[in-house]
């Protein structure tokens, strides 16, 4: 289905990443945002709260992040596309209800404009140290989806993708931005509404009485019935059967959790997305994401000038991680070089998939800025020595 023109600000703009993310949400059909504004994500909700009245959207400034995430989960159950926006400290507080969203299979989007941490850290400066929190932050087994834009244009594009993925798989989807992208202003092209593909909520066509809210429909993703549509059902964070009723048994837990995992794992090939350049015959492959991907390219160019065969993998979807491709490449390359604005997170995934067949070299950065391209090129040169 095509985007609702009311939310699409077609044209060529000069926007920061936060504004572009907000425009992406509105273009995707988001009409409910609850949040507790926090630097460096505040501009997302500033933009949305200013423009929402024109398209019938609702923004609520909540009392805290726990309530924000709870409101988003609740709103999603009315059928409204819903989102919250935060940064590290707020992301921590949202984890409980993110888990609830995952267990209840609630399509929604959580934007995290990452800043330096831990704790309140560096409010106005860049970080990428919440990547594993996005993967494992809430307790129990679940499989998240996360994207990481490297520019305001991608902040717009990937936010639309996030809403579409949330609808397709009925999970909370994360947009893992960072302060640098959030606060950088660049050209953003917003296409006409008829060129924006939107995935609508898959509502059940079964009559009340036949509908089972947590029934596996072949693709492991249940059909949806909106609160108020006349269906009697129950939804809960407790382990539940196909009716949504709590059932405390090993068998039900197995059925419930394995479907939650399998709906993502079984489609991982369709969900993972990355850009791959010149990996054929490469000795080293640089894997990066978000803002770091831009600086990594400079490091790659510097190393290529010194004669090293360097390939590039730039993750667009960071979770699920492209395990299969990294395993394949690990049989051919000497090492992966992984620059990230943290002290080693996605590099652990690379190391796991390389399984000793190729090195996994971290180029760390504690946060507050981006890498010097030279630090990346010297890691590449060191890897081929």
């Amino acid at each position, binding site marked *: 289905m095509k985007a609702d023109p009311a939310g699409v600000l077609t044209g060529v*703009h*000069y926007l920061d990443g936060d504004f572009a993310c907000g425009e992406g949400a509105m273009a995707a059909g988001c009409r409910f945002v609850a949040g507790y504004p926090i630097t460096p994500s505040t501009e997302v909700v500033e933009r949305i709260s200013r423009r929402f009245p024109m398209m019938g959207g609702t923004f609520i400034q909540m009392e805290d992040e726990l309530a924000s995430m709870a409101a988003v989960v609740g709103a999603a159950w009315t059928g409204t596309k819903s989102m919250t926006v935060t940064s590290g400290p707020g992301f921590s507080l949202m984890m409980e209800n993110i888990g609830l969203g995952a267990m209840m299979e609630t399509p929604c989007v959580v934007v995290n404009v990452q800043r330096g941490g831990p704790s309140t850290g560096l409010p106005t400066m860049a970080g990428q140290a919440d990547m594993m929190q996005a993967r494992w932050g809430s307790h129990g087994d679940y499989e998240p989806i996360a994207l990481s834009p490297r520019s305001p244009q991608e902040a717009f594009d990937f936010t639309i993708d996030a809403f579409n993925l949330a609808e397709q798989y009925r999970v909370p989807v994360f947009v893992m931005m960072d302060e*640098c992208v959030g606060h950088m202003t*660049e*050209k953003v092209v917003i296409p006409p509404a008829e060129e924006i593909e939107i995935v609508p909520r898959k509502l059940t066509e079964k009559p009340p009485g036949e509908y089972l809210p947590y029934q596996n429909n072949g693709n492991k993703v249940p059909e949806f019935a909106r609160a108020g549509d006349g269906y009697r059902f129950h939804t809960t964070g407790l382990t539940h059967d196909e009716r949504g009723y709590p059932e405390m048994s090993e068998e039900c837990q197995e059925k419930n959790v394995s479907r939650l995992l399998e709906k993502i794992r079984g489609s991982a090939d369709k969900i993972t997305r990355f850009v791959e350049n010149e990996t054929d015959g490469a000795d080293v492959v640089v894997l990066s994401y978000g803002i770091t991907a831009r*600086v990594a390219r400079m490091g790659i160019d510097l190393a290529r000038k010194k004669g090293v065969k360097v390939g590039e993998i730039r993750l667009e979807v960071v979770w699920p991680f492209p395990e299969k491709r990294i395993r394949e490449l690990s049989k051919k390359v000497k090492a992966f070089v992984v620059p990230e604005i943290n002290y080693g997170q996605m590099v652990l995934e690379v190391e796991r998939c390389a399984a000793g067949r190729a090195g996994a070299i971290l180029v760390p950065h504690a946060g507050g800025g981006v890498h010097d391209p030279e630090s990346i090129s010297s890691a590449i040169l060191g890897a081929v020595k």
Partner: protein
Amino acid sequence: MSRTEIRVTGYGGQGVVLCAYIIGRANAVNAGNHSTMIQSFGPEARGSACSATLALSDEEILYPYIRRPDIFVAMSAEGYDKHRDELKPKGTLVYEKDLVPARLKKGQRSFGIPSTRIAEGLGRSLVQNIVMLGFFAAVSGLIPRDEVRKAVEDSVPTGTEELNLKAFDAGWSYFEEHYGAGAEGDAVAAATVVSPVA
């Protein structure tokens, strides 16, 4: 256009960010190049030093921050003092003549304008930043005049377009009248230190 780095500084309330925004927009949206603008997100408040940086290029911009600016636009003394040593040895200084006691250096071209007084003459001191923008556009010659004018029109609040375009033209004309194309800028005194403030 090879990569050009610019820093715009002034005090909070002077329209530093809007000035930088319009430069970036003119170059990226209207002139079809690339520009990345980053505004400082410190504890800036009205009255204290504030700045924004720009990287302009005809190629994709990978590194978003600037290292040493090629052009330094200073609208206040505090901002000037904070960042003046970053300017490249052969860089260009563009400054508010009445507010910035510039220490001109050999090798750097320097261009001063009383942009606040000019804006006051137009009836609104608020448009000082756009006077400075017009002056900057003329000094740098980086982006065609019409593209910058269009960016002004598209960026200022509705209803103020005419006044802002007047301000832009006033800044541009000041350059033509006091310097002109190919000008080397203000003369540097033997001691290399000159206070333009009379």
